[in-house]
């Protein structure tokens, strides 16, 4: 290692005065304060919000159009991560090509799921939910058999750091995630608002029967929703593979977070999912930084509980699925 840090830290106090200590000799949870730390925490949260929003929006889209709670959505994220491992680490393709392949292949896999699993169960939401749990287990087992149970190391495509402000930095690998998430979510928003396919998707989400009476094909819109939803989960996994490293059970954590996000945002609300992802990521990151990671999980769940009590349909949800 290089030279040791030169100076000792300044004793800390909170805005309420001296901080009580849990164990004698230590500062309390809010001891470390500086503008740099706050801004760095915002930067860290931006990354967390980005990949979480991609996953959550895909989950909302599938639920909105098909009415199926896809518990295997975390495993689609996992497949995307393995796509990067395979194409980028194993086959030596460029990182961006591997990410693009992750999006397309996982999206295509979504089409297979829609046709083989969810379409026959379209009128049976409980059956769809159980089928998705079965799919989740199958995908985990398949990944374990093919790639093993250990995490697969994926060397980051770059070690370059982006300096946002003095003392506030983000590795470019994280910046990529933020940029792609913003780009894809913006494109999705434009697609939904401006294109006929987007209108059809929204119509099916609002009232499938009325949409069908207008000549909109449910099968076609379901395929589209599944491709986009799965592809977004896939690209999130593919982009974050160098940061989290693929392993068969990596979908578990992300699906729990994604469910919290869509419940807070309002089930069926795409905008709500994005805003809730940002909110959840901010809470998680700030509590982890200023308190600890264990409390962050508790606070995240408390956030969901409070929203459910105060506004049972979520921040942007309506009573009926839409």
């Amino acid at each position, binding site marked *: 290692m290089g030279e040791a840090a030169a100076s000792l830290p300044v004793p800390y106090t909170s805005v309420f005065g001296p901080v009580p200590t849990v164990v004698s000799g230590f500062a309390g949870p809010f001891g470390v304060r500086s503008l740099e730390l706050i801004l760095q925490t915002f930067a860290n949260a931006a990354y967390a919000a980005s990949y979480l929003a991609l996953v959550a929006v895909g989950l909302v889209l599938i639920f909105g159009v098909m009415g199926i709670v896809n518990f295997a959505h975390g495993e689609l994220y996992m497949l995307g991560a393995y796509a990067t491992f395979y194409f980028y680490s194993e086959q030596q393709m460029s990182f961006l090509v591997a990410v693009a392949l992750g999006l397309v292949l996982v999206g295509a896999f979504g089409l297979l799921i829609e046709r083989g699993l969810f379409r026959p169960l379209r009128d049976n939401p409980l059956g769809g939910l159980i089928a998705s749990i079965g799919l989740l287990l199958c995908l985990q087992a398949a990944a374990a058999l093919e790639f093993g149970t250990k995490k697969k190391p994926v060397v980051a495509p770059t070690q370059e750091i982006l300096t946002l402000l003095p003392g506030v930095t983000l590795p470019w690998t994280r910046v990529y995630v933020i940029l792609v998430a913003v780009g894809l979510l913006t494109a999705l928003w434009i697609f939904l608002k401006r294109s006929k396919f987007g209108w059809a998707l929204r119509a099916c989400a609002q009232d499938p029967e009325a949409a069908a009476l207008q000549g909109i094909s449910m099968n076609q819109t379901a395929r589209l929703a599944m491709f986009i939803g799965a592809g977004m989960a896939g690209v999130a996994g593919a982009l974050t593979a160098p940061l989290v490293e693929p392993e068969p059970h990596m979908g578990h954590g992300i699906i729990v977070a994604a469910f919290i996000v869509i419940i807070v945002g309002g089930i069926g609300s795409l905008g709500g999912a994005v805003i809730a992802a940002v909110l959840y990521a901010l809470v998680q990151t700030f509590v982890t930084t200023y308190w*600890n990671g264990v409390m962050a999980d508790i606070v995240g769940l408390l956030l969901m509980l409070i929203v459910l009590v105060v506004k049972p349909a979520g921040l942007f949800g309506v009573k009926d699925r839409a």
Partner: protein
Amino acid sequence: MSIELIKRRLSRRRFIQSTATGAALAGAGIGLAGPVRAEGEAIKIGFLAPLTGDVAAWGAPGLYGCQIWAERVNANGGVIIDGRRHPVEFVAFDNEYSAAKARTGAQKLIEDDGVKFIMMLGGDTMPPVVDISNRTGMLVSTLLPSDLTPETPLLIAPAEVHPIYNVTGVAWLGENKPDLKTAMICAQDDALGRPSVATYLAAFEAAGIDVIEEPLFFDISTTDFAPIMTRMMASDPDIICLDTAYTDYVHPLCEQAFLQGYKGQILSCTMDFYDQVVAKTSKEFMEGVIFQFPDFDDPKMNNPQINFQDPGGFYNEYNRRFPGEWGAVSWEYASIMDLWKAAAESANSAEPEAVLAAMKGTGTGAQCFGEARWWGKELFGIDNALVGNWPVVAIDDGVARIQEFRSIPAWWDRHKDLLIKHMEAMGEMYYQRI
């Protein structure tokens, strides 16, 4: 071997090849490669550890080491009891680091498989197995002496004295890098992390190094370590201590330290698969990182006090058979088996009670890194941990190299009050755990 093993390996083919070879060598004396053939009934040993899941890195590599150990021992005639040579056969059960599955596994190994000894990682999976062990009289080993209490008379910690050996790394730093004055600790919030934090706190205090904030605990489901490293670095510590974090946490924590520009000293209990961390950071960044587990081809492993047969040959064979799998526990379960074999032959019996009596009879034992004593009454309420010297390892030009073997009992004799104080503060003393 049980079907659970099929799940654990990266490559099915490699697993099947290796276990088929091991089983052929171990089974009934057929196809023994060595010069002496074991003729007695096979002695079954239970391997009840996480072979899949987040903690698999501290289970599965140990089983591979046991396979090599069994082949070596069986090729030389196995375990000699009453003049008969018995081959040793390992029966594995993947507990996935789940207490419920550990209970099921212990019952299966004892009742269905008839094992004579069970080796475990320990920690969160140990409490249900202790109940079964006490009821059935089964001898069980753990890698985590913090599992020991006065209520665990049949539980032994003969290979590693986690987390107490972590004091050696801190003491070495205190003596060799006296300019390091401050430290920050992070740890996962579980049965492995907490006692280790208490140990590091005591070791830092003994070395005159200030821990400048409360240890930063994180949940075991954490996947994004950037906020944790941001918080650690905000206090500008000379040392960032990763405690006994699992491999899946150590790697991203090191990577985050690198990406966020940390320039100080990194200290960790383990650094399994450190070559991957070097690849994700740089040789320069990892230079001097201190941890506690050596590669067995280290020249210092040929020192005369080492109680491990042909460590270099074992290491090379391991890496040939299981490339990229060498880690902290690769040798530990095999080392426990050395101790068990010596005790069984001394007792002329594989029965748990007789083996335990033979193991502890003299009050000392041949631990891997030298002669050690059965110890632990003050810390665990029972003298069932074998404690002696432990290596301090540093990354040197991208390779792990032993810096020194240091005495844990010597540290304990000088600073035991500190360790007990911090263990009590963390609620980890045996009388607080039972």
